[in-house]
């Protein structure tokens, strides 16, 4: 139990840092700094996911959130101004209201959440345990996440691949692929 308690404090520290970065993002006006801080936010959440043993999710968060999306935001930022315009007070109040209501709803729902690591929680009780039990015989692959993603739920991942393809297609149709310069010459 002593080990468990220690990692718990690491989680608290990471969440506190996430909150600090979040507040810093709200208070800043310089878009470059904000983009960099969103990258930091992703990296911190990736560290937190590692601490929660969700290594595959952490990997994706670090690569997509801290890597690619930061670069894409920088690219988008270069097309617009470097500082954001100050907003009127009325907008602040509406935003605050939305945040408070959402926060209250989440706090209200918190009571129904299973305790972290609870073996009887729905995630651990039903089909998840079946995958853990069946993977060594069915797939014979040590990484159960890969087994679920690519084999048991291969059809879902096929759909996800086409979602990514559709996203690329949408951007290509709207903005082109950036190959127009060569085509003109």
């Amino acid at each position: 139990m002593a080990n468990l308690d220690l990692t718990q404090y690491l989680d608290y520290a990471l969440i506190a840092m996430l909150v600090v970065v979040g507040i810093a993002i709200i208070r800043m006006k310089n878009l470059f700094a904000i983009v960099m801080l969103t990258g930091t936010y992703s990296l911190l959440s990736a560290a937190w996911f590692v601490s929660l043993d969700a290594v595959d999710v952490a990997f994706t968060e670090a690569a997509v959130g801290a890597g690619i999306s930061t670069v894409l935001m920088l690219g988008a930022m270069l097309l617009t101004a470097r500082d954001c315009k100050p907003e009127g007070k009325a907008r602040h109040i509406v935003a605050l209201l939305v945040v408070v209501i959402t926060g209250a709803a989440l706090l209200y729902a918190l009571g129904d959440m299973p305790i972290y690591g609870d073996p009887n929680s729905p995630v651990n009780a039903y089909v998840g345990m079946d995958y853990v039990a069946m993977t060594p015989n069915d797939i014979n692959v040590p990484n159960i996440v890969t087994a679920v993603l690519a084999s048991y739920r291969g059809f879902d991942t096929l759909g996800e691949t086409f979602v990514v393809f559709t996203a690329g297609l949408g951007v290509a149709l709207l903005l082109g692929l950036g190959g127009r310069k060569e085509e003109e010459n």
Partner: protein
Amino acid sequence: MMPPHIVLRVVSKLLIPFIVVFGFYVHFHGDYSPGGGFQAGVILAAAVILYALIFGVDAAKKAVPPSWVRIGMALGGLIYAGTGIVTLLMGGDFLDYDVLHPDLSHKSGQHIGIMCVELGVLTTVTCVMLAIFYAFAGRTPDISDEDW
């Protein structure tokens, strides 16, 4: 005149091959360790994007032409769905990898099937990320030296 950002250029020239190798490691080791086609695709795309950031988008477009990216986006989905079609033709269900290899005791068919569909995911993800980056970068003037 000395090219600007000499440290960035030298360091990234050294790092990019390792990033690519790491991307392929994440892909081919996805059965045993965290990661898979999606993460590997993002890492490979990140390597090319880093190259584009340091050496300019035109140099990156010479290394990975936009026409390849355009083809790869669709090719990945084709590889994935094609694996399903192959299993259908070999007498199994759609995406039922067991029929791909007769060695059922080691589940070799599953290993082959997972590798094939992950290759499809890798191709699509790499190319889509690059396509989005090229689309944005094609509209942006190159970052001037004062803005670094």
